[in-house]
């Protein structure tokens, strides 16, 4: 049964007339063409599909599009502003904190959510906050360094 779902998507008011039980991940990818949000496991275990909903990092494979009615959804495509990379994106590039890049959007969204809640995390807090995002290329060392660098840059209130 289709309904019109209204929500904020990457800073813009959006609506979709769609079956509200559809998985948010596939709606983002197929309906909105936002393919930066990746399918990794479909079970909420890997984090490749992480998006921000009202500034909270969540797994879009575990939500229905109806769940985000009235909420503010940000995907990897919505992070850069006016063509300028977000500090977390910039830090991932600067530290070469990726290899195949498939987990990267989820990592960046999760790290962004982490820094929104805790702008100056300790290494332990970064590890804890990123623990359930999986990277098979094993770029963990550089991802932690990137989050630290982004934290320093964002501290200025950017």
């Amino acid at each position, binding site marked *: 049964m289709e309904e019109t779902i209204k929500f904020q998507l990457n800073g813009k008011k959006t609506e979709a007339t769609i079956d509200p039980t559809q998985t948010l991940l596939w709606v983002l990818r197929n309906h909105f063409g936002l393919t930066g949000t990746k399918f990794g496991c479909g079970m909420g275990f890997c984090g490749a599909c992480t998006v921000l909903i009202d500034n909270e990092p969540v797994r879009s494979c575990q939500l229905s599009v109806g769940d985000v009615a009235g909420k503010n959804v940000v995907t990897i495509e919505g992070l850069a502003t006016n063509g300028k990379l977000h500090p977390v994106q910039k830090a991932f590039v600067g530290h070469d904190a990726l290899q195949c*890049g*498939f987990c990267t959007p989820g990592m960046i969204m999760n790290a962004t959510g982490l820094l929104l809640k805790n702008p100056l995390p300790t290494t332990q807090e970064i590890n804890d906050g990123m623990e359930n995002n999986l990277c098979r290329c094993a770029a963990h060392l550089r991802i932690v360094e990137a989050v630290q660098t982004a934290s320093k840059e964002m501290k200025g209130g950017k």
Partner: protein
Amino acid sequence: MKKETTNNLAELRTDKNHGMERRDFFKILGGGIFIFFRPWNALDLTGQQARQSKSLPKDYNAFLRIAEDGTVTCFTGKIEMGQGIITSLPQMMADELNVPLEKVKMVMGDTDLCPYDQGTWGSLSTRVFGPYMRVAAAEARGVLLGIASAQLGVPVAQLDVKDGMITDTKNPKSSVSYAQLTKGKRIEKFLDVKPPVEDYTKFNYVGKSYNHSDAIIKVTGEAKYTGDIKLPGMVFARILRRPSHGAKLKSVDYSAAEKIAGTKVVRDGDLIAVINENHDRADEAIAKIKAEYSFDEIPVNDKTIFEWMLKADSSVNVVRSNGDIESGRQVSDKVFDSEFHDPYLAHTAIETHTALARLEGDKMTVWASTQSPFGLRDGIVRELGFPVEKVRVIVPFVGGGFGGKGEAQQGIEAAKLAKLTGKPVMLVWTRNEEFFLDTFHPAGVVKIKSGIDKSGLIKFWDYNLYYSGTRGSDTLYDVPNSKTTHYSQKSGGAPIHPFGTGAWRAPNNNTNTFAREVQIDIMATAAGIDPLEFRLKNLKDEKLIACLKAVADKFGYKPGKSPGGRGIGIALGTDAGSWVAHMAEVKVDKNTGKVQVIRIACAQDMGLCVNPEGAIIQMEGCIMMGLGYTLTEEVLFEGGNIQNRGFDSYTIPRFSWLPKIDTVILERKDKPPQGGGEPAIIAIGAVIANAIFDATGARLFRLPMTPARVLEALKKV
């Protein structure tokens, strides 16, 4: 270079350029200078097998093109899956042609545009493909110098090239750019030469560090992987999978599936699939299919597999041998006999196997996440009966391979479904399918008998390897009497592995290095000699000695006998033409058996290092990924039924595991480049096992070293 490189890739891979016929090659690419190689020439260097050469096109394939705007495009059948050749190959190209790095673009993994390539594995891209690519570049440079010489009216010897500009050295005002020279021309050169040995010391870009050139589009979500491509009328497919590898379909009822809105059920023999424009609906529909199976399982599981292998009627091969084992035993003071067990492992790239297939007229185009675009093309030719020129495979960015995407079953499946339905079909394997259909790292057993004399010199080494591969099984140490015997599947015999196996990052070297380096440690302890000193004493290989000394220096190693309660381990090995040595420090919780790795250092001799930053990233990745097979990873199964099919039950390394990592790349600018994507993973199992022993006196012979196994080993101390 960053943006341009990938935009160019995207351009060539967009919808409008699909299904390109070879005659369209020039139409689309326009003028310029093209350097071609015969495909079979390129094959010499990949050790191509005869069966695959049947389907080779008879024309030449382009290696590179210098366009009318002076940009250089390198065409390679290699693919980018995170190993970084999209960055390092342009460095080599820019140096050979004397052009700025940002002028070099890459077109990768497109079977219509790129030269034949066996596949991206074995850390071969830089060490084997690279030199051929550079011959093409040198040839192009020669052509350009020839035209410039005529145009400027001076001999070639009087010309100098810098940043794509050719200048008369006697009259610096007289110059012409590559772009000017190629304007309005179409020059084709066909080569049949082999690359000469190059002087690796004269380069500007090679040897310097560059960040990943694809990083920006990978942090913005712009980078396109196979699953990100959308075609008009595209449907999602799900395929009915049997519950275990020994199951056979008895009956099937898909009436309920057909009732899911928009669903079509497709069947071709054993291939039963549902298609739906909506991804979720395809998922729902496949779950509604009721199927019954008969089961014919191999009576073995993850616990009994090792005994199963040892009892099997195997094909026995002596791989290498020197001296005489019996005489070695007679002069030995102490003799050691160990048995090592290594389980099946899954690859678990975060991108599952994905393919999109479209049939237009008589031309099949398949986009796929594969390490072998030409292998997939040949597979489609073989299984669907298409002529080779009617199949085009395009590989966008690949979300991790590790050997698991050498086969491209999903591409053949998608092609079959596209042919059956007449629609573009997107097939994204689920994580469950990924864990079930994987070509696993094979389980194996290694039995070693060895002996040392009173002075601690190894006198014999009798190495027996069961059902794993021989890569990395070299003795490495200077042993007068040694023999390596390989027990493998007897041709025509009953299968030993209950499911498919294949390459897993540094295939089988992890198994062999684990066994060898633990055995070496056992002997060092028995000899009462520090394990570093014991290794140095028994090694003659200068490269391994240099790596050991470099890692000891980086680690700040202080000599001591093991077990010394410090938790420090050593291991070394060779892989893909490179040499590595590792040291690690661990803490072991004797109550829980949990191992925490504090730090790991690795020294690597990889010959000339093209992109040190990229090579270090690969080493760090190898080290961290290696902790998985060392501590937790293991496929659990009963017969052909894989029991752990998710990241909740198959544990790969996570952030909390991250040790301090130190890497050293030995300065070898005068030596040809060697492999860098795999070597640093091979010794992780051994270095951690030896560190656990040093910490606790507990010896582990079985990977992974889970808390339960560590506790079990502690009981025997």
